[in-house]
């Protein structure tokens, strides 16, 4: 799929999801279980996908006749210092996230929050830590 087709597909899918979400909100009188949240999830995802797709289309059209601007954007995007700054910021945010996750888990446990919610949080924490270990091993082999 070309970049152009992907952008249009994202925008159309977003619009469809938004439409389905709004339709479900209007038509389901007494929603039960996950159907209470599904319409709003559809609206949220739809708005996100539509906005993302449309912004990509507008951006591509805006820079289409200006190769100099496109070149400058590419340079900024691929600039090694910018990439290095971005990676350092992400690494720092990851370190902070580990502490935030830990504090949240302890808080949830002390607050007596439902066991399912606490376990979901614990497993997501472990999953993130697992990803960190996996990529550490992968890059250790590659570099």
């Amino acid at each position, binding site marked *: 799929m070309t970049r152009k087709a992907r952008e249009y597909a994202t925008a159309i899918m977003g619009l469809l999801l938004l439409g389905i979400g709004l339709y479900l909100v209007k038509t389901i009188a007494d929603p039960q279980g996950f159907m209470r949240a599904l319409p709003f999830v559809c609206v949220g995802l739809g708005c996100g996908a539509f906005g993302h797709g449309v912004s990509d289309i507008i951006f591509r059209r805006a820079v289409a006749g200006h190769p100099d601007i496109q070149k400058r954007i590419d*340079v900024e995007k691929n*600039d*090694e*210092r*910018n990439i290095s700054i971005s990676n350092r910021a992400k690494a720092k945010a990851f370190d902070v996230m580990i502490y935030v996750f830990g504090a949240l888990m302890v808080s949830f446990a002390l607050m007596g929050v439902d066991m399912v919610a606490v376990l979901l949080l614990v497993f997501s924490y472990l999953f993130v830590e697992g990803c960190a270990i996996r990529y550490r091993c992968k890059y250790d082999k590659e570099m």
Partner: protein
Amino acid sequence: MKNRLEELRKQRGIRQEDLAAALEVSRQTVGSLENGRYNPSILLAFKIARYFGMSVEDVFIYEEEK
């Protein structure tokens, strides 16, 4: 690590913007390199040295940490 980037650029009368365009990096990167706030990758270091027609050692000065 110190470097002679600013000195070499000024000797040749090149603007930061032009050097950045030639090296395909942002102007901020050139500024940071000149101020010594950022050390380039080995690829960029070679690119810079090649641009000035010099060796990497002539542009970048390695100093042992005390």
